[in-house]
């Protein structure tokens, strides 16, 4: 019996290592490439690296324009997250605590907003943004990213605010708390962890967005993902630098991973599947 168990455990770990390896290897390879100079890259694929060629990171970020793109991405992602969370708190409270006429169709509308292919929206946005002079501005992208982040934040937060007992609100209102007062003093403190996770995921989605940013910005508000996509050029790509910028793009995901991993499935499935 013990032998059988031992075999089973070995088998489990074998599969785990295999799957983890398959998942991690491409990412590992990118990190390795980002540490190599051009000369090292063309001597054939080696699986390990002992030295780091810092210039791959230094030149694009400090000598080239990528530092600015990085700051743009930070501004846009943070601005969008702030706006989305602010709006979503009120909207979610309304959805969670009031019986709203038509909330079913609102749900459907926000879902389709989230699922719509961005490619179908680039032309109207391009023309409208040109007309009202929002092209190549931070504020333009900050507003635009609400299209997918706001529905997402509302439906993720709704599950969390629904879980707060309504009796708390009632006690507060008996004590003479106004509606906004209740929201501020009662709901927000309880919902803080949920808000933090929602904010992180919203932030990552803004950071990750590419298509809208590439069409609606040219220089001033260009984001890092857009810069990364422009690395592949006709005259020959500097693979080391491209890998380095990719690693920079990847960092926020890694930093936030520990916090969001418990909620990521709830978030990506609109709260339909809870972990």
């Amino acid at each position, binding site marked *: 019996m013990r032998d059988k168990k031992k075999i089973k455990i070995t088998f489990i770990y074998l599969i785990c290592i295999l799957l983890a390896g398959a998942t991690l290897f491409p990412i590992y390879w990118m990190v390795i490439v980002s540490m190599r100079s051009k000369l090292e890259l063309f001597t054939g694929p080696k699986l390990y690296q002992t030295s780091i060629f810092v210039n791959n990171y230094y030149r694009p970020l400090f000598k080239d324009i990528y530092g600015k793109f990085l700051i743009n991405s930070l501004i846009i992602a943070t601005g969008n997250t702030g706006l989305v969370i602010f709006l979503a708190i009120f909207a979610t409270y309304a959805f969670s605590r009031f019986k709203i006429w038509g909330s079913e169709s609102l749900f459907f509308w926000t879902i389709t907003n989230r699922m719509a292919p961005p490619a179908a929206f680039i032309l109207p946005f391009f023309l409208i943004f040109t007309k009202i002079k929002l092209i190549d501005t931070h504020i333009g992208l900050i507003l635009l990213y609400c299209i997918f982040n706001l529905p997402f934040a509302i439906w993720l937060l709704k599950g969390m605010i629904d879980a707060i007992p309504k009796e708390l609100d009632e006690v507060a209102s008996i004590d003479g708390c106004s509606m906004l007062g209740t929201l501020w003093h009662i709901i927000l403190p309880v919902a803080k962890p949920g808000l933090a996770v929602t904010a992180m995921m919203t932030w990552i989605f803004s950071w990750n967005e590419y298509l809208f940013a590439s069409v609606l910005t040219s220089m001033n508000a260009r984001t890092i993902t857009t810069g990364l996509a422009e690395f592949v050029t006709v005259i020959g790509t500097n693979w080391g630098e491209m*890998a380095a910028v990719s690693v920079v793009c990847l960092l926020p995901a890694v930093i936030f991973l520990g916090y969001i991993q418990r909620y990521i499935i709830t978030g990506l499935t609109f709260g339909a599947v809870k972990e």
Partner: protein
Amino acid sequence: MRTSQYKAWGLLAPTLVILFFIGLVPFLYVIYLSLFKYNIWSVRGMVFAGVDNFRKLMFDSSFMHSLGIGLTFVVITCSIETLLGLVIAIFLTNEFVGKGVFRTILTLPLAIAPITIGSIWVLMTNPDIGPLPYILHKFGIDYNIGVNAKQAFFTVVFMDIWHWTPFVTLTLLAGLTSFPKEPFEAAKVDGANKWQTLRYITLPLLTPVILTMLFIRVMDTFRIFDEVWMLTGGGPGTATRFVSIDVVRRVLVSTDYGYGSSMSVFLLYLTIVMCWLLLNIISITRKEVHER
């Protein structure tokens, strides 16, 4: 009761205003544009064309081709991801030390920017420096996704499977661990073997979760853009030119705004119909499972 409705709408107002301007206005505008012949390089400017664009669209073999490969892509990736994800999820119901670390590793691809995923696979498949061509060359296979259409298509399939199988796995695992214990204990008492338990208890209970997951996967795969754009740019030829890429090329490269709009409208129409259908199917199966 009246005042509470006012309060609710007051709370919702800012959200609705924003979603109106960035969701509804562009939507109506693109429908409007789709009724015109409009290319910025044309001297005639905007010319009203009625439904001409849509008539042309229905007989446009290149658009139908991109729809076709798009659907093929959806069917192949989603079925492989579901099967693979289901097997791994069932495997992960075993308890073992280090499971948390393994789950964290699986979560990683889900948080990475799609454009970075594309760049990761550019580095993996590049004929000069990538390990994949190097290894395949040892087996006598010439691997170059810049030239070989079939290889390009299946590399994109492989990339999508690599990217999204963890999502399927973790979603189904969340479903599997949320089940009530009674039916499984009853099955054990009745002497059902593992396969029978899986077939007659686990899978039926899991159906709503599988459908929800499939809904999200189908919609996301159908509109895939970033990764493919980065990896192949839709090429070689039209081998990986999925609908999103086709629309973007039509609008940005050919600047054919009127025709591009009609493609967009058609895509949005498909999206709405698919959302409506799939959400209805999900809510019906949910009810059925609850009634049992």
